[in-house]
């Protein structure tokens, strides 16, 4: 177990790689009563097609990671949620594009029991064929729930319009057909390939003794035997630079219409650090231009170019990159013209040194805020390690980046591949 500390933020943490390869991190928060512990694999909805080092392809139905997440809660004697509850620990899980995360929170003084259970249930595949069948109805209802959320609906449609072959164009939970196609065998194979401890990470934010926590994890891993699993990578998709569709109009029975614009950005062959730096610089420029930091922002609202609910999001990953703009407006074409013209100005202007100082100060507050929440901190820590940039590295990156570097990075993006999705009101709301 190796000890680390950050004198600026006054945090101490411990790291160890366990037998079998599991990476464990314990962040010690002696003044808190809550322990927040997550166990995660970098296996998300986008990993439905993977290749090993020999080039062998492993294909699974859309939504496999999510279905597997639901079913791992099943144990040989029932549902592990019941076992956690009996210990006074709340357990849950989520699947995103990139990862599946299982976590529990407990305010008990001794967390050895829920911690062992977390390790046990995630590292044990006890799924029956009957329960797979039963789960299909639940997941179809979950899909229906997301499907009637206007924001989820419009964002998924933007992805469909932007990406021809990349699986980001599919719902994380899968399609009704893929959900109905699952069997125990499919899930078991996906589990065997993607839950090897050498791929996984355990992050624990706790007031408990870090050495004792590490002992529990180490003992648990020493007792287990894990068959060799191939080293897998997500399949590489020959995604064209252009978008699939220029425009889509959706209709829903809602009272607020919406418009979303997606810019598909070029993917680069770069290191994790270079990618994080590029994302950081572009994000700073967007924050400087498309928020109230910009003196014109109020005029944009007053003149109806945007509403007060205007928002945007930037995503730069190894195999995809995009910027999304969303607003509560049905006149999507006007919104698109406005955003394209402002993007051009943003790209040519970059960011002023004074604004950069302002955003650096904001970043300091953000990290201090994160350090106050055990559950947010454990998740951010996992993302940081997965992305190769820790939460502290990210802060230092923002502290040191220059306006010149930001300008260079924002000028590297092109806005010629864009798509528009308009969500129009139907029913009595449209009258």
């Amino acid at each position, binding site marked *: 177990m190796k000890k680390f500390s950050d004198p600026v933020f006054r945090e101490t943490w411990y790291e160890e790689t366990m037998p079998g390869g599991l990476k464990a991190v314990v962040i010690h928060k002696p003044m808190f009563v*809550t322990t927040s512990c997550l166990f995660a694999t970098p296996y998300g909805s986008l990993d439905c097609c993977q290749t090993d080092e020999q080039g062998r392809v492993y294909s699974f139905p859309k939504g496999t990671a999510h279905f597997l997440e639901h079913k791992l809660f099943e144990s040989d004697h029932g549902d592990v949620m019941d076992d956690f509850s009996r210990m006074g620990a709340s357990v849950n899980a989520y699947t995103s594009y990139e990862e599946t995360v299982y976590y529990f929170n407990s305010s008990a003084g001794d967390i050895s029991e829920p911690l062992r259970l977390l390790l046990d249930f995630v590292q044990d595949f006890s799924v029956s064929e009957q329960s797979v069948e039963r789960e299909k109805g639940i997941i179809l209802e979950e899909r*229906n729930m997301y499907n*009637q959320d206007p924001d989820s609906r419009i964002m998924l449609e933007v992805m469909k319009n932007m990406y021809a072959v990349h699986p980001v164009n599919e719902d994380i939970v899968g399609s009704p057909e893929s959900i109905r196609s699952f069997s125990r065998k499919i899930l078991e194979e996906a589990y065997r390939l993607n839950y090897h401890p050498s791929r996984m990470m355990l992050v624990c934010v706790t007031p408990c003794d870090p050495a004792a926590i590490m002992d529990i994890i180490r003992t648990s891993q020493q007792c287990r035997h894990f068959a060799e699993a191939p080293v897998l990578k997500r399949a590489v998709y020959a995604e064209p630079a252009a978008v699939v569709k220029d425009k889509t109009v959706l*209709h829903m*029975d809602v009272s607020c219409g919406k418009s979303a614009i997606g810019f598909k950005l070029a993917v680069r062959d770069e290191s994790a650090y270079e990618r994080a730096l590029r994302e950081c610089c572009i994000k700073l420029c967007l924050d400087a231009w498309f928020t109230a930091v910009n*003196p014109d922002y109020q005029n944009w609202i007053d003149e109806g170019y945007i509403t007060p609910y205007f928002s945007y999001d930037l995503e730069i990953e190894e195999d995809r990159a995009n910027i999304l703009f969303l607003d509560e407006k049905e006149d999507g074409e006007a919104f698109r013209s406005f955003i394209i013209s402002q993007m051009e100005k943003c790209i040519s202007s970059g960011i002023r040194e004074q604004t950069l100082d302002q955003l650096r*100060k904001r970043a300091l*507050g953000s990290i*201090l805020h994160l350090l106050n929440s055990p559950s947010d901190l454990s998740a951010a820590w996992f993302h940081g390690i997965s992305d190769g940039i820790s939460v502290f590295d990210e802060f230092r990156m923002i502290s040191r980046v220059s306006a010149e570097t930001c300008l260079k990075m924002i000028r590297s993006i092109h806005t010629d591949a864009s798509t528009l999705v308009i969500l129009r009101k139907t029913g009595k709301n449209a009258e």
Partner: protein
Amino acid sequence: MKHYQICRGCRLHIHKTEKFKEVTLALNFMKDISKADRAGMFLLSFLLSDSCRAYQTKQEVQALFDNLYGASFSVANDPRGSCDLLEMTVTCPDSAYLEEDILEKQFEILSQFALEPRMENGLFDENLFRECRLKAVESVNMLNDDPAYYANERAAALYGGSYAMRCTPSADELLEISNEKCSAVYRDLVSRGNTDLFVLGNVDEGACLSYMKKYFPLKDRDSFFNIMHLHCGRKAEVREKKQISQSSLVMLYDTGHVYTDDDMPAFMLGNGIFGALPTSMLFQEIREKNSLCYAVGSENMIFDGILRISTSMEAASINEAVRLIEKQLERMKNGDFSEQDMETAREMYIASWRSSMDHVPSLIWDDYRSVILGRDDPVSDMIRRFNETNRQQIIDAWSTLALKTVYILEQEASDEEVQ
């Protein structure tokens, strides 16, 4: 926590702790809930968070908070029980992590946003008022576009009483309210509402008291508000249709218990057994065994004496879900639950109350609840009461439940894509 009476009806509460790397100031104004003032109170949360006399533009406000190291500022209208509440919260980094002390500035800006809004001649700035009213209308429309939220609101409106009054105002109500009315609601709230400022963090208590006196020159007020009101809801069953992909079901029951009742811990543990936890009867029977839904749960409204059950599913499954819900309720009344069910609920509730001590908004709410109930109400006391609760007390507490309102928002047809 230390309490300081600033003047009649205005208090400062300091909860000193080194646990957090931030300092939070939460200023709460409370008044009795009224239908006439609901739209105004809701709109105030937009007007008072946008800007103030000292910082008139969005750019100035953004620069102010960024330069205070990413300070966060929010204003929430959050009616509870039979009271309406406006919560203004500023959170800044603890100055120990900075090269300057910003605590006084934190008090000053909270005062500027709360007590010196953008008003002239007794009215909010007209441009600000128009923009915020539009923003509030959009906000209501967006909320109501979530079928589950809309169903909860419709059920509350049907149930009646102050629970109905707590509903988010409609878009029409917001469009009808005038600047004059909204400004009057503001003046009434600030001059007459019970006012409590909570400070949570590693602060100097003497400095906080002097900043409070300096920046909050409030006057005496004699109001007394009782947040608790035991409801007796209206009997109603209503079905409405909408083009959605899932139907929503809401069932409201009179419970006969409010927070300060002796049997509240028993009722809470019963709710854990019945519907509030993933181990509960509702989750196990409706979701796990019958695969009817993704989410189902029950919520105990502790100041109102109301239990709300809500879920979403295929329209064809609704009647079966209602049957299963009623069956589980009978099991509660008959004591048809195991010792293990009871112990699990006890463990989970104790854990949840203990965890609130690590969560800033929960801590402030725990402190505020003690203040508005006028009694010392520490987490440790509720944990002791959970530990003392027995099976018979749970059965007795659940024997008084009476179904009042059922609301179903049914799917009409699925939405379609149009090229």
